[in-house]
């Protein structure tokens, strides 16, 4: 297994359960994920996808590991940009740990094979998504409604 290409950490004043719900509930997803949401039944081996607001499919994959509300690993491939899809599957690990009255959310992402385009694309998106998620959970509102 290759080493993670990036490791993003954010501290959010909430509970692990509320954060887990925000990460897996499609309606909550749309509030901080630029209108997109994930679809899955959140069981190990189940299919997983991200769907844009217009209904088109952004990414697909499967749940590799899941341990609510602590950890999940998703096998993840882009579907809407051919040059990213060509780089194949990546592995996204989400980890939630208690941290002194808050929770520490760690997102790591690694590509199974070689390539740089997919990681470059997702590494730009995650900080925005995570900041929005933090704002949503801590204040009920988001900072940036649309990308760019």
């Amino acid at each position: 297994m290759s080493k993670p290409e990036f490791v993003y950490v954010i501290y959010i004043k909430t509970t692990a359960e509320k954060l887990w719900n925000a990460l897996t509930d499609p309606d909550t997803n749309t509030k901080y994920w630029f209108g997109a949401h994930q679809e899955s039944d959140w069981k190990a081996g189940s299919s997983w996808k991200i769907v844009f607001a217009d209904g088109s499919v952004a990414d697909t994959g499967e749940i590799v590991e899941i341990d609510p509300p602590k950890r999940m690993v998703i096998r993840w491939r882009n579907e809407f940009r051919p040059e990213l899809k060509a780089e194949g599957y990546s592995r996204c690990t989400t980890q939630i740990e208690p941290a002194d009255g808050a929770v520490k959310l760690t997102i790591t992402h690694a590509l199974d094979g070689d390539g740089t385009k997919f990681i470059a694309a997702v590494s730009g998106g995650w900080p925005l998504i995570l900041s929005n998620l933090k704002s949503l959970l801590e204040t009920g509102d988001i900072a940036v409604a649309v990308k760019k």
Partner: protein
Amino acid sequence: MDEVFKALADASRRSLLDRLHAENGQTLNELCDGLAMTRQAVTKHLGILEAANLVSTVKRGREKLHYLNPVPIHQIGERWIRKFERGKLAALSDLKRRLESSDE
């Protein structure tokens, strides 16, 4: 947020972040390599950067890999940059980069 500014207010710590920006996921040995800082100084600076959440780490066997965590910097930007300004600011920094690197 105070911790982030304090951590960034030091040239040695910024150079460590630059090294991680150039190559993410380095060990302490790799980070020390070619630096005019002692190993103890690098360890101390990394501790301050990690406490400010500017550096995140993962364990890999016996090694600890260090990553640049841009999330707090992004949050600082978001606090003072309005969304309509993003495009113009990106264009300006792109222009600056191109003009200043024109000798390459």
